């Protein structure tokens, strides 16, 4: 709370410049600073080195090797794995699909969570209740949520909740997950995803909303601004930086979509009959099911490349890449 109150002061003071100190002290100062930096970042860096960087480096080498049912290196094949994947129509389709999906789902998630945040923030009574109701789903695992969606809400039999409600309006029982024209499975996927994720983003937006100084609203109210104009001229601009950060997280999450697709479409033994597949689903099949670690790793780096490109473009447009201080 102190942080929000004194926020404007921070920018100037962010880099405490050691003014006028003797040279000797400055030297030990610099050394103690470096020491502190090393001590504080070491656990994270060592941990990431052991559990992530080694694996990432290894995977990178594997992406240039033939590695079926083994992860030992040695049978170098150059760019063959990359070529194989890019010539695979199903993988290419999955890349196109995920770009379109991201383009659709990010705005929807963004508007839904911002909308909820604004609504929840507007009410006085029951705010804690609404906040909790929307945040609770974040505690549910994808597997459990998909099970509820598949077996109870959107099952194809008349006893599914969606079909029960449909029957009230005289509709026949519909197999939601299996219907491809029109693609009703998107309703299943998108509602599941929103249910699980919106609460978390909503909380981040509420945090941003609460840090907007109230006097701005008072001024707007005196000017006679309506709710929509207040939102457009105060709320939204003041949320700009929150929004940019949340968008970055949303883009990464959308491009790496896997869990709800897999949980909804997997039929037991293996994949294949799903009407849409994300790149990560394809790679899961290649690497963890079919045991082709060379091609699987190549795919991971292609997907990483796509993520980096899209977040860079996003950063260009919205200015996230700019150094903050």
């Amino acid at each position, binding site marked *: 709370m102190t942080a929000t109150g004194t926020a404007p002061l921070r920018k100037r003071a962010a880099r405490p410049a050691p003014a006028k100190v003797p040279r000797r002290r400055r030297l030990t100062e610099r050394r103690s600073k470096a020491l502190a930096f090393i001590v504080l970042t070491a*656990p994270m860096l060592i941990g990431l080195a052991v559990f992530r960087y080694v694996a990432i480096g290894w995977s990178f080498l594997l992406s240039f090797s033939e590695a*079926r*049912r*083994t*992860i030992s290196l040695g049978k170098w094949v150059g760019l063959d794995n990359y070529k194989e994947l890019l010539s*695979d*129509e*199903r993988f290419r389709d999955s890349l196109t699909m995920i770009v379109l999906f991201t383009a659709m789902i990010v705005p929807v998630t963004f508007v839904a969570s911002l909308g909820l945040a604004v609504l929840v923030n507007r009410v006085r009574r029951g705010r804690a209740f609404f906040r909790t109701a929307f945040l609770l789903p974040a505690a549910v695992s994808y597997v459990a949520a998909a099970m509820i969606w*598949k*077996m*109870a809400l*959107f*099952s*194809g*039999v*008349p006893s*599914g909740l969606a079909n029960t409600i449909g029957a009230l309006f005289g509709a026949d*029982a519909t*197999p*939601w*997950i*299996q219907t*491809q*024209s029109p693609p009703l499975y998107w309703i299943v996927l998108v509602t599941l995803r929103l249910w699980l994720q919106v609460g978390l983003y909503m909380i981040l937006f509420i945090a941003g909303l609460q840090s907007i100084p109230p006097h701005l609203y008072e001024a707007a109210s005196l000017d006679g601004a309506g709710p929509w104009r207040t939102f457009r001229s105060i709320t939204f601009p003041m949320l700009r930086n929150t929004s940019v950060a949340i968008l970055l997280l949303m883009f990464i999450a959308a491009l790496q979509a896997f869990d709800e697709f897999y949980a909804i*479409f*997997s*039929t*037991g*033994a*293996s*994949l*294949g*009959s*799903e*009407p849409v597949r994300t790149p990560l689903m394809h790679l899961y*099949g*290649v690497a*963890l*099911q*079919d*045991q*082709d670690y060379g091609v699987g790793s190549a795919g991971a780096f292609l997907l990483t490349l796509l993520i980096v490109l899209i977040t860079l473009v996003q950063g260009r447009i919205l200015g996230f890449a700019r150094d903050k201080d």
Partner: protein
Amino acid sequence: MSVLFVAGSAVACSSNPQATASAKGAKVTLTQWYHQYGEEGTQAAVKRYAKEFTKANPDIAINVVWGADTSQYETKLNAALLGADAPDIFELGDFRAEMARKGQLEPLDDVYGSAKDGFNKADIDYLTVDGKLYGMKTIDDIMMLFYRKSMLTKAGVTPPTTFAELTAAAKKLTDGDIKGLFIGNDGIGDSPYLLAWSQGVDMIKDGKVVYADAAKSIGGLHDLHSDKSILLGFTTDWYDAGAFTQGATAMQWCGLWALPTVEKALGDDFGVVPWPAYDASGKPVARLGGWSQAINSKSKHVAEAKKYLQWLWVEQSAIQMDWAVKYGFHVPPQNAVAAKTPALSKGAAKDTVTIGTKYGISFPAEWTQAMQAEFIAAAADIAQGDDPAKTLKKAQSKAQSDLDKQMG
């Protein structure tokens, strides 16, 4: 960091079966993996078998590790085989010849010995790679078509003997919320394999992937889907008899394992038939599945592991019978044992065993998960109306390059 040490010591206290087993005086402890069986009592049973073996062979203790469900088990096993903590003996659902060719499996010809001729011939062929046997079936699972007698009579249809009859029956049996046929929640299930086989087409023949020849029969999936006569999106999938016993479908593709449940729910109001021949020139088919055991070629105790496998799955016919029919419903792979099993010698169980012997077909051993995914995806596209010949050709050429890669 100190918290980590606390975690470490917490583990030190947790029971380590390997340590306790070897403490009892056994010289060698073998680790044996099973996937998760759904039937009650299965885990206790395999532990009991292991104990009996140690009683007879005090030098060798067995550490039974009960694993994940089928969909995760293979992933988990493959990961373990890459690492330092691989099991000595493990179960395999779909046998993968590639594992043998990559040197991950130990040949088991000497374990079979002269008993080899007594095993189901189809199983022996399935588990043979380049002239050597790399696995030992512990149960055969037969998959077949269940039909509800009363519903068929009411609709005036007989159990189908051709695919045309099947689609016609499914259509006739569909009545409002009750569907004619259930082959899987995705409307695909194993049907593409069954359709191809029933047309007389194999997946792989003489080192070539040839399933595109089955364009005619797999194209039939589109009719089933546009007729809206198949059940989609039920609560449980085809391998559970729920849809059939609940009366949501008149016919369901399921397996022998579900027979006790179906009998309990429906009495004798049901029958079993193979998947019908595609047409007069085709043949009826059933899928032959089940589980095999194999030995890790990198195991430090291959000789002991072989001794155990031989004792358990070749010699102990009482245990094999117990394992096959006491908890679920499966067929023992040794013909003589199967013939002696009383539960399999009457009623629908007997019909199923006959179906399995006459029409049972396994997946090819060269089949991989990538080929499976590609084939099923093609069939799913065809069900939605894509051109069968073109779609299958494309999938087939991809599968062929996978196969070439596998054969080296």
